[in-house]
C-alpha cells in the first residue's frame, strides 16, 4: 500500500533485488566451494588439469560477475572474507584483465594494522584481490617455464629457457624424448608448489621487517607491489581465506621431494642430499613461519 506522496518503487527493481540476493548467495556458495576444491586438489600429488582449469575458470567467472554487480550487498561479501586477501588490491588500481594482473599478483597474506578501518575501501578491492589470487593460483602453473619478470625465479627461468627452445624446435619435426623429460618436470608443475623455492631464495628477515612498513601504505600501488615482489615472492597459491601459516605448512609438505630434483631446478642452492636438505628447509621454514606469526600478531 503506497501512501500519498510517496514515491513508487519500480517493480522490476524489486524483483532484481530479490533475485540478486539469491544470485549473490549462490555466487558465494560457488565461490567458497570452488576455493575449497582448488585447495584440496592442490594437496593431491597430481591433480587433474582439466578439473583444475574448470574450477579456476569458474572462480574467475564468479569474481568477475561479482564486480560487475556493485549493487550487491557488500556486508554479505565482507563477512565472507575473514582476512584481507591481498595488499596489492588497492582502490587506486583499476580492474584489469587477469593476464595483466598476473605479474603483480601476490598472495601476501599479511594483515595490515588498520585493516578494519580500511575495510570500506577494501570492499571493492576484495574482488580485485580475488582476481589476483586466482591469477596467482594459475601462476603456480609451470612457473619455471614462465618468461615473467619475477625476480625470485629468474635463475630458474634461465635454466628452463633451453627447454623452452627445445620445445619450439620439437614442433617442426622430430620430438626428442629427452627434452620432454626435462619439460616434464617443469611442465606439469601446473599446481605444484614451486613457490617453495621462492621461500628459500629470499629468506632475508631484515628486508622483511623493513618492508612491513611498506605494507601499511595504501597508495603508490604498482611501485610498492614490485618492491614487495622482490622481497616477498608469492608464497603459495592458496586462497584469500586461508591464514598464512597454514599455507606455509602446505608448502613444507613437498620440501623433501622438491629438493630431490634440485640439480636442474635451482642454480643458487647447492645440491644437498635429500634428508639433510629436507631438515634444513623445514628448519628454515619454521623460522619463517615463526616470523610471520609475529608479524600477524603485530
Amino acid at each position, binding site marked *: 500500500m503506497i501512501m500519498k506522496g510517496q514515491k513508487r518503487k519500480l517493480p522490476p527493481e524489486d524483483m532484481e533485488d530479490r533475485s540478486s540476493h539469491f544470485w549473490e548467495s549462490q555466487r558465494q556458495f*560457488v565461490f567458497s566451494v570452488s576455493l575449497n576444491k582448488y585447495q584440496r586438489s592442490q594437496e593431491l600429488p597430481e591433480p587433474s588439469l582439466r578439473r583444475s582449469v574448470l574450477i579456476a575458470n569458474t572462480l574467475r567467472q564468479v569474481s568477475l560477475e561479482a564486480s560487475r554487480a556493485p549493487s550487491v550487498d557488500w556486508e554479505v561479501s565482507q563477512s565472507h572474507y575473514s582476512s584481507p586477501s591481498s595488499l596489492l588490491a588497492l582502490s587506486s588500481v583499476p580492474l584489469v584483465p587477469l593476464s595483466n594482473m598476473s605479474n603483480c599478483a601476490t598472495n601476501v597474506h599479511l594483515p595490515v594494522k588498520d585493516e578494519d578501518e580500511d575495510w570500506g575501501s577494501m570492499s571493492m578491492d576484495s574482488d580485485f584481490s580475488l582476481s589476483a589470487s586466482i591469477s596467482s593460483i594459475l601462476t603456480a602453473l609451470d612457473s619455471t617455464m614462465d618468461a615473467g619478470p619475477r625476480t625470485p625465479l629468474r635463475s630458474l627461468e634461465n635454466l628452463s629457457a633451453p627447454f623452452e627452445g627445445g620445445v619450439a624446435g620439437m614442433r617442426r619435426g622430430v620430438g626428442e624424448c629427452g627434452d620432454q623429460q626435462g619439460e616434464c*618436470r617443469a611442465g606439469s608443475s601446473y599446481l605444484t608448489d614451486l613457490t617453495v623455492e621462492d621461500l628459500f631464495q629470499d629468506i632475508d628477515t631484515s628486508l622483511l621487517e623493513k618492508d612491513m612498513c611498506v605494507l601499511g601504505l595504501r597508495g603508490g600501488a604498482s611501485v610498492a607491489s614490485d618492491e614487495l615482489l622482490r622481497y616477498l615472492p608469492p608464497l603459495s597459491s592458496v586462497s584469500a581465506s586461508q591464514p598464512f601459516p597454514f599455507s606455509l605448512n602446505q608448502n613444507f609438505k613437498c620440501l623433501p621431494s622438491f629438493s630431490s630434483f634440485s640439480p636442474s631446478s635451482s642454480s643458487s642452492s647447492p645440491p644437498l642430499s635429500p634428508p639433510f636438505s629436507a631438515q634444513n628447509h623445514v628448519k628454515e621454514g619454521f623460522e619463517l613461519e615463526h616470523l610471520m606469526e609475529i608479524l600477524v600478531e603485530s
Partner: protein
Amino acid sequence: MGEDTDATPTLNHRGFLPDHNYVTEADIISTVEFNHTGELLATGDKGGRVVIFQREPESKTEPFSQGEYNVYSTFQSHEPEFDYLKSLEIEEKINKIRWLPQQNAAHFLLSTNDKTIKLWKVSERDKRPEGYNLKDEEGRIKDVSTVTSLQVPVLMPMDLMVEVSPRRVFANAHTYHVNSISVNSDYETYMSADDLRINLWHLDITDRSFNIVDIKPANMEDLTEVITAAEFHPHHCNLFVYSSSKGTLRLCDMREAALCDKHSKLFEEPEDPSARSFFSEIISSVSDVKFSHSGRYLLTRDYLTAKVWDLNMESKPLETYQVHDYLRSKLCSLYENDCIFDKFECAWNGSDSVIMTGAYNNFFRMFDRNTKRDVTLEASRESSKPRAVLKPRRVCAAGGKRRKDDISVDSLDFTKKILHTAWHPNENIIAIAATNNLYIFQDKLNSEMH
C-alpha cells in the same frame, strides 16, 4: 526402439566378476572397446589389466541363440610407475584401448595409461612341435648316445593357448595425462592426445613422435582450455577432430601445416544467454567425441546432452539429445560432490542411426535419430536376469507425475555411473561397463543392423 517389440534388447549377462559382492578399486572398468569385426571385446581396468572377450561362434543346434562372449585372454598391460623427477606415482589405470584392423592371424591393440602407450599382440597357438631329436618330451636334453635314429619334428595340435606379448612401448612423449588414442585409417600411424598436446606416432617407431597440436600457452597463467578427446576421421587419414573443455570441436587437416594449432573448422554452439549459470562452462565441456561410421557426422557428449554435428555445419549441432536434463536444477550439488566432472562416453551403432550414452544410477540411454524415440535402460544385476528383456526405466522430476517403477531424481545413485559403453560395429550388441561389472546386451530378434 524402446517400447517396440521388434527391437527390444534382451539381456545376455556376463558379469565381469560375478562372485564378488564388493567392489575392488582395481577392478573398476575404465574402458571398453569392440574390435573391427566385433568378434573381440576388450576391457581395461583401474588395475592396469586388460581382459579380452571373444564371441563364441553361433552354434548350429540353436540358430536363434547368438554367440556369447567368453573370456579369451587376460593380461597385465600397465604397472604402476614412479616418476622420480616429480616424485609422483603414475597410475596404471587403462584410459583407452583401441584395436588395430586385423591384417593377419594375430590381433593387435593399443592400450594406454596416463603416460605410456603400448602395442600388444594377441595371437593363438594351437599347435606345437613334437619329436625333437635332442630333447625329450619334457624338454630335458637327451643323452646323445641314446639317439639311434633321426626324426623330423611335426606340428601336433594342442590346447588352444592365447599368447599376449608387448610389441611396442611408446613412452616419454606426454607431459600431461593421455586421454585419447586413435588409430589412423592409413593403418600406419596413430595419435595420442593429452590435456594440452596431441602427438602423431608411427606404429613401428617408438622413440619419436610428431607433435601436431599444442595448445599450451606461453604463460601457464593464461591457460583456460584443455583438450578432452581426439579422434581420426574414419576414412580421410589427414583429418582429425579434437574437443575442448570449453565445448568446442576443432577439425584439423594435417596437410595444411605440420603443426595443426590452426583449425580447419571450428564447431561451436553459441551459448544460450537465458540458460547461463555459473556452471555453464563446466557442463559444456565435451567429454567424448566420436565420428560416425560414415564419417559425415560427429557425436559429442557434454555433461547434460549428446549432440550430433554435421561436418559441413559449424555453427550449431544438427541434433541435441537431452540425456538427463532433470539434473540441470541440481548442478550446484553436483558441483559440490564432483559429479559434474564425470566424463561420459558415447557411441554410434553400426548404421549411425542410433546413439548411446551412459548416465547415473546405472542407467544408459539410447536415442534413435530417425524416429526421435529414446529409451532409458538399467544395467544392474537386480533388474536383469539372463535372457530377460530389459525393462525401460523412467526418471521423473521431483514433484512430477509419478508412475509405478519410476525413479525420482532425488533417489538416483550418483555413485553408479555408466561412463563407458561400446556398440558392436555391425550388430545390435552393446557392452556396458558399470563400475566393476561388464554387461553385454544383445538384440535377439533383430541381430542385424537396420
